[in-house]
């Protein structure tokens, strides 16, 4: 089989037919994008590696159990699993931090240090968020409208297209350009999002 042109669906079918190699090839095909996303979210290579493994273990389990139906959305599905794993990680971190605060009652300096870091992090984080919100205001009107409708109002792309009187493709294109422009502005300001 010519792996270079095999679609995700073909590789999945091969795997389900007994070709264990096919799943490795499928994972390799998408690993960079998945790993990059996880790494950006957690900002720790070791943690990112763990979450990356958990992501694909979970995915393979679903496939092995016959619960996955490929409809050309494999990468979207994998990224969604990775995203959920990252959210789980942050929730566990938050819970651990709350436990640590109560356990550190005897070490006043330690607790104070921890509390100060948290408050400072929050202040800096909020300042950066304010900067990014301001950048949204600087977007071209069409892009700004899509962003507002998507994030503030929680509208789907279909709804955004209907409200603005354009095709879904146009709405999607404006969203993409909005993100690209925001990314550019963020990099120009050397901001680190957290």
């Amino acid at each position, binding site marked *: 089989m010519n792996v270079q042109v095999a679609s995700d669906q073909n590789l999945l079918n091969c795997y389900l037919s007994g070709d264990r190699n096919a799943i490795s090839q499928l994972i390799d095909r998408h690993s960079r994008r998945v790993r990059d996303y996880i790494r950006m979210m957690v900002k720790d290579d070791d943690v990112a590696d763990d979450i990356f493994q958990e992501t694909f273990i979970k995915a393979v389990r679903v496939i092995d159990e016959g619960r996955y*139906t490929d409809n050309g959305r494999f990468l979207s*599905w994998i990224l969604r699993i990775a995203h959920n794993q990252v959210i789980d990680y942050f929730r566990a971190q938050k819970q651990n931090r709350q436990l640590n605060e109560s356990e550190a009652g005897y070490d006043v300096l330690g607790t104070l240090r921890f509390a100060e870091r948290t408050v400072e992090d929050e202040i800096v984080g909020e300042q950066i968020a304010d900067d990014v919100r301001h950048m949204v205001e600087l977007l071209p009107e069409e892009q700004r409208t899509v962003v507002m409708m998507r*994030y503030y109002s*929680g509208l789907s792309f279909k709804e955004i297209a209907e409200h603005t009187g354009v095709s879904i493709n146009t709405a999607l294109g404006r969203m993409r350009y909005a993100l690209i422009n925001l*990314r550019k502005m963020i990099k120009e300001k050397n901001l680190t*999002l957290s």
Partner: protein
Amino acid sequence: MKELDSENATGSISDDDDLLMREVICGEAELLYLDTYLREILQKR
């Protein structure tokens, strides 16, 4: 997380999310990260 686990389990992803991933994010991790970040900070307002 039950809803998310169910989503993972069946391989389903909403049409809207699929459009986002395929036509907006196009596999670019930075844009996916930015989308997640914006969702967080803009919904907080």
